[in-house]
């Protein structure tokens, strides 16, 4: 629910009833939870692509927009949406279990990022060169779980040349990885594709982005991304689904503007926003 008179602390509902105003469509407020410092998705200045998409949605449904900020670390959904600090989290996996999700509005996958002149033609996890190249992987850390390509590499006995970049740290892990690549401290970075496209486009080195495909026995690399609402908030879910469907061309344009590489995209080289 995004109306000012629902799902809010009881005293506000009471105040609202007493004053007997504002329970109208134009008083709608879309309360959003987001990470204040996690570009390209979001930042506190509203410069991320999820900020832009949320703005499109709010305008579409005639709601004002407010944010509750918290780093998207362990327990984010519980500490934000499920504690009632907001009504929607944009940009979470459509398969996430503890929320009700909208229809997905993009799909990402994991990508190899590298200097083409150093490793020409690299495109596959079974490439023998991956046994010796310095490979950077984001390190989820929580629950001791690696990214799916990390598991795929471990299955192939590739660990010694793998360097972990904890996702919790100064600046986003993919930015640190791509910076290391540009400085020749890494040969290959394996990055979530929406972040890969954006950060590759931000720096001058000629880097290739190649989407990875799992083989038999590998985990799935592709995740559909949606918005999440509280499990009992089917009404907001329907409202958002309608807006996302109407806004598809505009959302695609925002994703292009941020050089978001999506599952199924052609290999992107030298992207510029």
């Amino acid at each position, binding site marked *: 629910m995004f109306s000012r008179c629902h799902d809010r602390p009881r005293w506000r509902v009471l105040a609202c009833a007493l004053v007997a105003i504002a329970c109208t469509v134009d008083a709608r407020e879309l309360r959003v939870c987001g990470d204040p410092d*996690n570009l390209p998705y979001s930042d506190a200045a509203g410069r991320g692509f999820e900020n832009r998409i949320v703005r499109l949605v709010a305008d579409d449904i005639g709601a004002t927009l407010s944010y509750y900020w918290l780093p998207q670390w362990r327990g984010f959904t519980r500490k934000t949406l499920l504690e009632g600090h907001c009504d929607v989290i944009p940009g979470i996996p459509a398969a996430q*279990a*503890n929320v009700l999700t909208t229809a997905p509005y993009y799909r990402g996958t994991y990508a190899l990022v590298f200097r083409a002149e150093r490793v020409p033609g690299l495109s596959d996890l079974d490439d023998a060169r991956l046994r010796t190249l310095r490979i950077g992987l984001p390190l*989820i*850390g929580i629950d001791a779980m690696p990214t799916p390509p990390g598991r795929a590499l471990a299955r192939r006995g590739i660990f010694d040349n793998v360097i972990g970049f904890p*996702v919790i740290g*100064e600046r986003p892990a993919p930015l640190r990885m791509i910076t290391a690549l540009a400085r020749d401290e890494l040969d290959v970075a394996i990055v*979530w594709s929406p972040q890969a496209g954006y950060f590759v486009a931000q720096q001058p080195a000629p880097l290739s982005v190649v989407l990875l495909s799992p083989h038999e026995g590998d985990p799935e690399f592709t995740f559909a991304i949606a918005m999440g609402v509280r499990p009992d908030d089917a009404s907001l879910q329907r409202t958002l689904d309608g807006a996302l469907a109407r806004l598809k061309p505009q959302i695609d344009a925002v994703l292009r503007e941020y050089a978001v590489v999506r599952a199924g995209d052609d290999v992107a080289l030298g992207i510029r926003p």
Partner: protein
Amino acid sequence: MAALRALLATGLAVVAASGFAQEASDAGNWTMPAKDYANTRYSPLDQVNTGNVGTLKLAWVFSTGVLRGHEAAPIIADDTLFIVTPYPNLVYALDLKAPGAPVKWKFSPNPVSSSQGVACCDLVNRGAVWSNGRLYFNALDNQTFALDARTGAEVWHARLGDIRRGETMTMAPLVVKDKVLVGNSGGEYGVRGWLTALDADNGRIAWRAFSTGPDSEVLIGPAFRPFYATDRGKDLGIGTWPGEAWKIGGGTVWGFVSYDPALDVIYYGTGNPGPWNPAQRPGDNKWTSGIFARDPATGQARWFYQMSPHDLHDYDGVNENILIDVTVGGASHRAIVHPDRNGYLYVIDRERGEVLSATPYASVTTSTGVDLQTGRLRYAPDKDPQPGRTVRDICPASPGAKDWQPAAYSPRTRLVYIPHQNLCQDAETAQTSYIAGTPYVGATLKMKPGPGGKRGRVTAWDPAAAKAAWTIDEDLPVWSGALATAGDVVFYGAMDGWFKAVDAKTGAPLWQFKTGSGIVGQPVSFRGPDGKQYVAVLSGIGGWAGTVVANDIDTRDQTAATGFANVVPDLKQKTQKGGALYVFALP
């Protein structure tokens, strides 16, 4: 020691205590969470005994105003009782000389609020330490503070770690001579563990010993003589890891530190390796999930023993090391008694680092024993969690047979009183998660009660006989510390709020009192200015086991609280949040 020799001469004494040589004036104080350097949590006071504890009455209560898990021990010195709360780590000094123990001073360290988002398992603090007129404690945001214990004025503070890298501090410092020993938490976040010695005068770092990496940074030098061959070799803190994984390898130091003044050696455990899935960090992953013996002046390691090489199950090695003398095979050893998370109670020669015995004190399916020739844990391969595979009946569960909650030892009964849990878990497939914009599929851990169906237990363990003398089953995990007294009474708290006294010899229940919230703190005993013996404990549910209440977690999400929500779905009905100190005395 003369008394000890006399006892041994009779041929009867198999266990005796060392480290009890306290001055008479110390008997009534409780200056460090573990009571003494040997970590016995034994009070020599005997006014309260098995005959009269049934009449124990509430003397006074003090509300801390904080709602998170209160795991700290009250500290008593100079007729003052000191408390450090969970985040925001308020410190209270209560005047024991005045009726009702009014607040003498209060100190707010104001830790940065983002530290709340980093702490893994509730925002706990395990206590302060009083030494030489000063009170030392750690704040969650990696600061160590020294206060003037009389006035509460800050003497110094030191910032030791980086929140942005996932580090926090939750442990209680230990003061050894002129050094304040502190360690970091955060093994789940790719933190590299360390123990740091600060100059007690000014807070400057005297030395820092990492738990992974090159010998020069682990402080391994010529004095390092580990007992087992697998711990000998150059730079094993690098060589037992793939590539550069040691840089983020865990091994944090968040448990209690012990000290043997006679040998002049400190002992402490290191946390589990991290943060990769085990398949991605082949090797023994030294020096994680083990025990270090070090020189307190220089930090140089004397020996190391690894309880869980290449840990698969989150079995930190940080549980307390109780320093007592134990007779094994007819010979008396200066020993460590260490109830590990992996389910074994280790008796280790503390001069040499040799395992004298390792006996399961809880249900264990993840391993089949400890090879005393090599010191190695024998893992059960069918309990190795594999991505995409369901593995059932992993015992003990990730919090171990016992987590942080410290045991007590009575030299009168020669038993170790171990508060612990009886939990197993199933590792099931696949739940999609998202951290900082990076999607992944994690294993779903579902904890469940272990064999017998009761989730908690207090075990009185005879370390010489390597068997339990008695046990008490508890419905909920026993997440509080234990206290043993010269009155032959053992105290512990339950997560539903009951504070209990039992007979140290038999485990027979003697007394109980229902406090306002679940107990996850460390009970202590002291002599008041009026000459009476008091027993004190912080009540206030929380910690990993209690976080479903402290964090208002929806227990319908069975995997919340890293699997704990599934096994304590009833906790919200049984207790509510609220931190308070309870102090008891005879009428």
